[in-house]
């Protein structure tokens, strides 16, 4: 068995608080698997962790090109981390395209571990380097610490007696790199060995080859003189005791829907059509049949939501998941769900748009569509998740609001949260809010007639589901008479119903928590108001600014419609309000409209998340200018 302490030459081990690592290579190089294994190892050891994969939209983009570069970034730390790192400290570049695509995000003085075979003439040309130029040799990397490692050659040597085909041998090269990184960060190999044994249990030869390649990488670190000056690093694990699991945002959404259905005593129905980057929600739920979950892969986005409306009418907790173009297709059905007043959760995992746009890249550009993108006046609650783990709590809350207020709810995530992961302290069922469906009980013939649109003090109607005796009634998309639900074209009635539908959503503000300040003083120079996946970057930047003595605070919105009741008061407590968004400024419209203030916008529309350095620079500039 591997003994990570037994080394032939004791390299110095330096303690560090956090490290951000990027594994980058061609899409065929297995970088996602490598990164995931590394992440699992540090998570299980108890490090704080945040991961973010970055890969091309094509399944197999041309090998060796910039378009084909696949990356997996992670930050692990002894203290809480909220982003994968604004810049990375270490970059594994399996080929020259991976280096070229990512060098700008490597810290000056950072470490590059380069697989030299990926820097041959052919690869350099594919990556677009001019003839004769090789960054490993021509001095362009003088500001970095470069370790050229013939990864493929060493992997082949290690596996020369494995009996595997040369193709299979070459595919083990990512494990060599993983082993080398485990050595560099004094991490154990056992977890990955177990994973490989389980993954290849039907092909022991392959399992052993991968393990052997990983060990070869580990011992290479130990034996080579290459790292003599650098030494090794240790990031001491600090996580509190407890049972954890690592979740991505998409997984968390799927778990939350299932949990909400269990807590509410309802069956879960998901009507869905595959669309990047939302599909994993459908995939995850399709595997939850032992919880009684029903998934329906519809013929299109419209059938996805309409089938969910049918299931909701039948008394299920119904949901649909999509991304921008799909939400556009669903908008007519959203209007129906609003006028029917049935519960429905719509998870929109935003991506760069318009049209197909940047399908694998995140953006926050569907906020105004979520708010207003419907025909007629069709208000519905809009809430947004801030982190992979928060995707659980926000989706759960969306389900609670939908069921308890008989309304469709849009829950916003994005491509960054969808695929990022972080450790989650396993939640106890008792800590989850109760969800109480308001089913209308059966009616006896002598009882007064059932009124489908009679409302309670929150203006919520009851849920009368087929199969309940005495409640037979007809509802639909036509405007309905107040209380009876009969078709009505009466002018006054339409205005009344329009107001009632809007007021019902507005009154949800009575049941949601007040807005809190995430960090910083309750009054001060600047409030950074964020929503969605920019949480980690803003959180980290504000922490830093506070350390530097700035008067700055951070508030992050989950509830965008309706806003928390105290939001206006909070905004008034700061001289300036900064709203960073991954769009051209959408929340800022809503804030100006609701509170008649003039916040400062900060937009980034690059299909790339904000990083903490950008936000920090903006904070300090604003405060210094004022």
């Amino acid at each position, binding site marked *: 068995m591997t003994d990570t302490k037994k080394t032939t030459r004791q390299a110095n081990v330096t303690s560090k608080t956090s490290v951000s690592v990027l594994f980058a290579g061609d899409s065929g190089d297995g970088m996602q698997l490598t990164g995931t294994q590394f992440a699992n190892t540090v998570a299980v050891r108890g490090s704080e962790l945040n991961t973010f994969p970055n890969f091309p939209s094509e399944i197999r983009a041309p090998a060796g090109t910039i378009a084909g570069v696949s990356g997996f970034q992670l930050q692990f730390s002894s203290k809480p981390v909220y982003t994968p790192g604004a810049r990375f400290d270490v970059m594994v570049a399996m080929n020259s395209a991976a280096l070229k695509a990512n060098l700008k995000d490597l810290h000056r003085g950072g470490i590059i571990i380069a697989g030299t075979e990926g820097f041959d003439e052919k690869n350099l040309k594919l990556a677009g380097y001019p003839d004769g130029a090789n960054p490993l040799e021509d001095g362009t990397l003088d500001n970095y610490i470069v370790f050229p490692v013939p990864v493929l050659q060493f992997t082949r040597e290690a596996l020369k007696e494995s009996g595997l085909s040369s193709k299979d041998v070459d595919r083990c090269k990512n494990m060599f790199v993983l082993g080398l990184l485990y050595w560099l960060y004094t991490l154990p190999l056992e977890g990955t060995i177990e994973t490989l044994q389980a993954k290849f249990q039907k092909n022991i030869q392959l399992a052993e080859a991968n393990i052997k390649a990983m060990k070869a990488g580990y011992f290479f670190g130990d034996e080579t003189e290459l790292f003599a000056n650098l030494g090794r690093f240790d990031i001491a694990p600090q996580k509190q005791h407890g049972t954890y699991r690592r979740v991505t945002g998409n997984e968390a959404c799927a*778990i939350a829907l299932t949990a909400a259905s269990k807590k509410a005593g309802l069956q879960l129905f998901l*009507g869905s059509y595959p669309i990047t980057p939302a599909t994993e929600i459908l995939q995850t739920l399709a595997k939850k049949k032992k919880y*009684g979950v029903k998934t329906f892969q519809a013929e299109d986005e419209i059938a996805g939501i309409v089938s*969910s*409306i*049918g*299931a909701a*009418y039948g008394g299920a907790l119904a949901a649909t998941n999509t991304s921008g173009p799909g939400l556009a297709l669903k908008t007519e059905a959203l209007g129906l769900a609003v006028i029917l007043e049935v519960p429905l959760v719509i998870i929109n995992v935003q991506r760069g748009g318009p049209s197909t746009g940047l399908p694998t890249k995140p953006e926050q550009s569907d906020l105004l569509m979520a708010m207003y993108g419907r025909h007629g006046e069709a208000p519905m609650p809009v809430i947004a998740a801030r982190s992979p783990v928060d995707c659980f709590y926000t989706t759960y809350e969306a389900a609670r609001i939908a069921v308890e207020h008989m309304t469709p709810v849009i829950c916003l995530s994005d491509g960054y949260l969808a695929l990022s992961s972080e450790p989650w302290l396993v939640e106890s069922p008792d800590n989850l809010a109760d969800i109480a469906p308001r089913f209308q009980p059966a009616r006896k013939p002598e009882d007064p007639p059932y009124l489908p649109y009679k409302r309670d003090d929150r203006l919520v109607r009851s849920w009368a589901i087929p199969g309940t*005796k005495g409640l037979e009634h007809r509802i*639909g998309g036509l405007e309905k008479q107040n209380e009876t639900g009969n078709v009505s074209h009466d002018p006054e009635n339409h205005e009344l119903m329009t107001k009632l539908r809007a007021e019902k959503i507005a009154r949800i503000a009575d049941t949601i928590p007040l807005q809190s300040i995430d960090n910083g003083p309750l009054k001060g120079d600047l409030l950074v108001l964020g929503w969605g996946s920019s949480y980690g970057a803003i959180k980290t930047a504000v922490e830093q600014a506070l350390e530097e003595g700035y008067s700055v605070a951070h508030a992050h919105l989950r509830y965008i419609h309706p806003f928390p009741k105290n939001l206006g008061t909070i905004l008034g407590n700061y001289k300036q309000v900064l709203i960073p968004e991954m769009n051209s400024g959408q929340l800022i419209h809503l804030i100006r409209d609701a509170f008649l203030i003039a916040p400062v916008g900060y937009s980034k529309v690059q299909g790339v998340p904000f990083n903490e350095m950008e936000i920090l620079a903006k904070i300090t500039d604003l405060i210094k200018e004022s």
Partner: protein
Amino acid sequence: MTDNDTTIIAAPARTAKDFASDQEPKWCPGCGDHAILQQLKNVMPELDVAPENVVFVSGIGCSSRLPYYMATYGVHGIHGRALPMATGLKVARPELSVWVATGDGDALSIGGNHFIHTLRRNPDLNVVLFNNEIYGLTKGQYSPTSKIGLRTITSPSGVIDQPFNTAALTIGSGGSFFARAFDRDGKYLRSILKRAALHKGTSLVEIYQNCPIFNNSAFEAFATPDSKADKTIYLEQDKPLVFGKEKNKGIRLDGFTPVVVDLDKEGLSTSDLWIHNETDINKASILARFADIHDKSEEVVPRPFGIFYAEERVTYEDALTEQIRDAQKNGVASLEDLLKGESSYVIK
């Protein structure tokens, strides 16, 4: 005296009236929809299903107003989307009797995609397709089943699109049940609706329905005493395809081609004719094409009515229920299991 002194009073048998809602139908006088509604109300008591367990789902169009007039549960949705709504409902609540009222525009134009996919999936829905070959509610535009040459407000020079053949589309989409009926022939319509309701799977009943305002008499040839006997053929299981006023004409199959024969003139007996078999998809496919067989724009074979095809096949919701049952054979997983997941780890 028995030890059971409660008397079970049998509920009085339901009648068509028990299925009539308090809303007055708002269709035009003389519209075929009235007759179809009446037959749906008539057939309900025969099905031994309580009103609270019946749901009518519809899209948009004249026919889609039908749910408002039935004293059952009903949802009137959006244009073309009745089938996925009904599918979602049926998947969530397999025990309900779910009906879909739709039209040629709703089902075959804006809802065409849902139409074909619903049929291949085969959820247990009863789909009643009111085909009047015109858009009624939007006032007289041509529909995907309008005949070539039909002059309408949007085809002033005549329709140039080839119409859909509903029967062929249904069978081609993998539908498990297709029948055709006629609004004017109430008794026959009711018998077809009953068979459709009893069919487990998606049953598609195309009803030729007259729109007296925008496409009056589109199906007149199949109704008037003068031509009805020669222009229609009523399908009966295991019976020869015989038609004509004197029942002296029939259909034979020459290879894949249906040929009209005169039994008297050609000295044939009914046993020489095509014997109807509603489980034979090849014959059903040929029946479906009868309407397309023309000679100098005249239809040469009579228009079939009745059950073309009925196949017993697993329904979507049953297959899904079975998968769930299988996944739960060792018990229903708990919320605790869900939250913990399968790859949790402990930090000590």
